[in-house]
């Protein structure tokens, strides 16, 4: 069933464009049926098997120990429920939001692809298949962010998200492999049982850092957070689904999943907790500076992701419970608010908080949804957001640094409070302001989602028992590897505790800032230039730096100068071959000096003269003649040393070559000296060094003058079996006839080439199908 659940969205994606074309408006509703069914299935499973873990496994690449195995336990079920539940609502919403868009069909494809991938991430039991789905979420996110691909900003944001999460993904790949090596298994269920093994591994620190890089980039932790606000270029359903409710929580999911293994690693608390706290603060602070609804929401999402990371870094049952509850709570209210933002944008074509006012009359249902979600986000009772915030404060309370941490948390929550009121309340109340378009209520497909999500925030707040035992506790148990004991009692009222005090402080501070927001923002905006030094710029610098370097190295390496290419190659040969020769071979000596005869010496001297002429002459004809002389000398050497066939062939070929040279080259210009003397000298040095390497190489064969058994075989069989006295000819046409077959093919092609070069000149004729 799990396999089916993960694969079915992909299957549906294939037919989605067709469905969209056939059904138009109804397509969204129909497509949503699949996640809805899956949701019910998962819910059913969760209710029937609370706090148990089940592994389902199918073979995929057995030779690499990679399986499609799935782990169903509290943690994965909670995420699966969010993915399918919110997914269904978002699909319905998309049908309304993008109604009439020519590429809506493709949009469904991407969205369904993402849904399947995300389910794969949270359900995978095999760390590698988890990684596969992880990368697929990045990729579908890329396509979704760039959905409005005729906008430059969308494309840039898509690329940024892809590169940042992609780079993190690669680190994660290395980390996951190291993890599997350390634990001796690719299956999470087995790794979870072998935490000691992993923690005892010498590469633990590297493993931890690599995995954290993957998780932090995905979950937009500082300093990788910048891609998330930029990703708000995507349509509202995408921001809702990927960039607040599900995908960005994949990193958090991974931290939670690996918590039993790595949570006790020495630097876990420092890295995870520290990074989380920083992100929480930065995200919340930056959220206050924004005026765009989506960007405000995006920065608060960053802050929440920081808080979640922070809690998981802190560890301990309360913190983990806080994190798990917060994951759910945040998905509910943030999902709703993003959809509300989409409705507003859709209705009035503006997302500027400072300009929008009094929308409640025109958009009453959206207003209700916004209010419910906003109050939950603000952490006010009786919403579940309040419970979750209390739980966080409680977790901090137990910690050594509680005062400092509490200050951080209060500051961050204060900012959230402000944003919540801005979006949930302020834009809807008061007298209506002028907007680019006349506001109107959204169609049912577009208010169903936000209203449902926001109402759940209220319901769960009023009756926390609904989720406590069945969803939260099993998930906490999975993260904490605890027996499935009932979680700390979730309730609105805990009595007068320090946590309540902190809540009060938060609300008071938040109210203060809310009232003075316009004033404050104007002041803070003077600091905006500082933003130019932020991580988003680091990304730019790195990218530009890499591209600049790429340009530079390509200009140097691929300079376009053939002599430089040749020189480089020759130097490489000298270094590799000559180096090895010098280093590895002891004896290099030239023997048999005395054994030379006068006529042989004459031939050699003639050759040397010819070479000298060749290198120095300024006349083409002289050079060609000299080359011919060298060739004839070679043919004489062949004659002298028992190779008449070679000699005749060489002689014929040399003659033919000289004729060709003269025929073809007599039209070419005189030789000129192109390069200056230092260049010439350096090149001469390279050439001489190369000659020396060749000489050294040739001495290798001199050491052992062994008779070749193969030659002996040829001599013995040439006449008897191959019926020929001329061994060389027999070799050519019989023993090694295939060589000759290739050889004549080369000749034939050479002739074709000459013919084509001389007769086919497209540059001169009219352009053909494909002339550039």
């Amino acid at each position, binding site marked *: 069933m799990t396999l089916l659940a993960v694969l079915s969205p992909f299957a549906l994606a294939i037919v989605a464009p067709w469905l969209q074309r056939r059904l138009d408006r109804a397509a969204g509703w129909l497509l949503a049926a699949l996640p809805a069914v899956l949701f019910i299935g998962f819910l059913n499973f969760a209710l029937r098997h609370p706090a148990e873990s089940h592994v389902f496994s199918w073979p995929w690449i057995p030779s690499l120990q990679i399986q499609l195995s799935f782990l169903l336990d509290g943690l994965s079920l909670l995420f699966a429920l969010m993915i399918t539940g919110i997914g269904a609502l978002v699909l319905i919403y998309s049908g309304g939001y993008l109604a009439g868009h020519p590429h809506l069909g493709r949009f469904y494809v991407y969205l369904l692809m993402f849904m399947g991938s995300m389910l794969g991430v949270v359900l995978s039991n095999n760390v590698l298949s988890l990684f596969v789905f992880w990368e697929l979420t990045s990729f579908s996110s890329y396509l979704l962010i760039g959905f409005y691909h005729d906008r430059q900003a969308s494309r840039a944001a898509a690329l940024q998200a892809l*590169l940042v999460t992609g780079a993190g993904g690669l680190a994660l790949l290395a980390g996951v492999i190291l993890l599997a090596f350390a634990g001796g298994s690719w299956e999470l269920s087995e790794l979870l049982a072998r935490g000691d093994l992993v923690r005892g591994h010498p590469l633990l620190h590297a493993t931890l850092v690599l995995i954290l890089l993957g998780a932090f980039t995905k979950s937009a932790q500082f300093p990788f957070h910048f891609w998330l606000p930029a990703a708000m270029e995507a349509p509202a359903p995408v921001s809702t689904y990927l960039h607040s409710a599900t995908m960005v929580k994949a990193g958090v999911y991974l931290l939670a999943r690996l918590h039993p293994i790595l949570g006790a690693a020495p630097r876990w608390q420092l890295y995870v907790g520290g990074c989380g706290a920083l992100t929480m603060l930065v995200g919340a602070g930056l959220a206050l500076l924004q005026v765009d609804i989506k960007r405000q929401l995006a920065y608060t999402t960053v802050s929440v992701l920081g808080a979640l990371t922070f809690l998981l870094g802190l560890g301990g049952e309360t913190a983990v419970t806080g994190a798990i509850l917060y994951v759910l709570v945040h998905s509910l209210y943030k999902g709703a608010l993003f959809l509300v933002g989409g409705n507003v944008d859709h209705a009035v074509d503006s997302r500027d908080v400072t300009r929008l006012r009094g929308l409640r009359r025109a958009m009453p249902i959206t207003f209700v949804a916004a209010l419910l979600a906003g109050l939950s986000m603000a952490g006010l009772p009786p919403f579940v957001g309040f419970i979750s915030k209390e739980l966080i404060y409680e977790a901090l309370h137990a910690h050594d640094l509680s005062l400092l941490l509490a200050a951080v948390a209060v500051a961050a929550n204060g900012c959230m409070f402000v944003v919540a009121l801005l979006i949930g309340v302020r834009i809807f109340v008061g007298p209506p302001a002028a907007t680019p378009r006349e506001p109107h209520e959204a169609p049912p497909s577009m208010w169903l989602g936000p209203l449902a999500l926001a109402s759940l925030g209220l319901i769960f707040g009023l009756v926390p028992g609904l989720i406590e035992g069945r969803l939260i506790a099993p998930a906490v148990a999975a993260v904490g590897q605890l027996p499935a004991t009932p979680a700390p009692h979730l309730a609105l009222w805990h009595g007068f505790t320090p946590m309540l005090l902190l809540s009060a402080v938060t609300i008071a501070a938040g109210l203060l800032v809310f009232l003075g927001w316009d004033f404050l923002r104007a002041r803070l905006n003077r600091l905006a230039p500082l933003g130019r030094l932020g991580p988003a710029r680091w990304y730019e610098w790195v990218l530009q730096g890499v591209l600049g370097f790429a340009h530079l*190295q390509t200009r140097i390496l691929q300079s*376009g100068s053939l002599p430089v290419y040749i020189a480089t190659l020759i130097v490489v040969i000298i270094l590799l071959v000559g180096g090895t020769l010098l280093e590895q071979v002891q004896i290099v000596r030239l023997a048999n000096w005395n054994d030379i005869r006068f006529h042989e010496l004459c031939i050699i001297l003639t050759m040397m003269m010819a070479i000298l002429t060749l290198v120095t002459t300024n006349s083409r004809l002289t050079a060609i003649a000299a080359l011919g002389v060298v060739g004839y000398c070679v043919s004489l050497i062949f004659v002298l040393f028992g190779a008449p066939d070679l000699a005749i062939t060489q002689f014929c070929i040399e003659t033919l070559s000289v004729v060709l040279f003269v025929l073809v080259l007599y039209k070419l210009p005189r030789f000129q000296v192109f390069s200056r003397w230092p260049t010439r000298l350096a090149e001469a040095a390279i050439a001489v060094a190369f000659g020396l390497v060749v000489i050294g190489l040739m001495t290798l064969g001199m050491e052992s003058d062994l008779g070749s058994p193969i030659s002996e075989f040829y001599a013995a069989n040439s006449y008897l079996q191959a019926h020929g006295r001329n061994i060389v000819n027999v070799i050519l046409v019989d023993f090694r006839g295939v060589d000759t077959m290739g050889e004549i093919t080369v000749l034939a092609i050479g002739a074709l080439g000459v013919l084509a070069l001389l007769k086919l000149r497209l540059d001169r004729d009219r352009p053909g199908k494909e002339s550039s």
Partner: protein
Amino acid sequence: MAATGVHVLLLCPVLIPLLGAIFSIFGWNRRRYQRTVLVVGMALLLAAAVALLRVVSAEGIQSVQVGNWPAPFGITFVADLFSAIMVLLGAMMGLAVAVYSFISIDVRRESFGYYPLFNTLMMGVSGAFLTGDLFNMYVWFEVMLISSFVLLALGGERAQLEGSIKYVTLNLLSSAVFLAGVGILYSVVGSLNMADIARLMSARVTEGIALTIAMMFLIAFGIKAAIFPMFFWLPASYHTPPVAVSAIFAGLLTKVGVYSLIRVFTLIFVQNPGYTHGAIAILAGFTMICGVLGAAAQMEFRRVLSFHIISQIGYMILGLGFFTPLALAGSVFYLIHHIIVKTNLFLVSGVVHRLQGTYQLKPLGGLYKRHPLLGLLFLIPAMSLAGVPPLSGFWAKFILIREGLELRHYLLVAAALVTSILTLYSMSKIWVEVFWKDKPESRVFGGAPIAHRLPRIVWVLYLAPIVALALCTVIIGLAAEPVFALSLRAAEQLMDPQAYIEAILGGG
């Protein structure tokens, strides 16, 4: 008689294209006839390659002695799994690009030898994969090379000629080194049969001499494979000929170099892997990085792709450098993946060129709106190249990275990962510029002819090979097990030279 069947089968990959070339020359100027000869020939080649792989897979290494002279005296044709896989890939690309040629090669080129040359190119490539004789391999290299020279220059456009000069010169240098290497090796071992040489190496050659000769072969094949710092000829020329030619070059030529490197460095030069294979691994690292940076700097469709060939060659060589069965399996898998994907990307670039008249990324655009199917067909190989799971490229990369981590070559793993992200960057660069972005006003870049509507038959012939290759990519990705298992068996065969030697020279 069954044995004879295999003997014929082993020669088919060479003989079929040769006969094809002969019949094409007989029918000089008769385009339709030459096309038929080519496509029938390539289909037969593919059938033979499939049959060969099946036989080799079922019954082990197969060999035949041409002329019936016993090894090592005659020339051996031999197919182990690795050879058979390569021949099959060659045949697949041959068929795909042949079909694609029909609508993309212009009439003049068609009637000036394109089809015979295509055939002889395939002949040289198959011969190089199948021969068991070092000098014979040189001959097949030359057949392949001169065919590629002529194909590259065919048409005589200025860019083609300039590219050809560099391509020809540097490849001839490589041949010269190869030939000298064969000569010296013969002088110290006294044999040309690769199995025989492998057998005799330890007995007749000291380690120092073996290493020196190994370096010569590293350079000779390294130039053909376009590894750092010997790749200059590739980016200088691959973007100049008609795209069908680029595609078949991109798919097969450098891969013959990689094949040869793997062959000689698993069979003959295994005296001191720490030295030779260590050097290969280091060069592989540089190859990956330099290639991908080169691609990042380019703004022309085919030039980007060309530089990516280099960086991907780095991955393939890396597996050889690691020199373990799993790493070699990674190399083989990478070869399989890369040949399919890279050829396909070039084919897509040709369609883009046909539609908008340029390969420059800046003036291109708007194709995703008009031709979503083409967009999808680009995305599949492009993302596979970048290693996005679960496409074929991911598994190839994964195996190598996994093995690198196991062997603790952390720097090389880092290089591989950086290469991967930069590949992703430049593939999405093409995607953004060609498909996502709207087409800029043509007057800014000079008006190029835009043909948004092509006749249906043209579309079908363009897309048929592209769709087929894209399907291969997806299938290899989703069902990686059979392909990987095959690669692993091939790698294990490669790591066991004794079996190869015995298959050719007999048990003695």
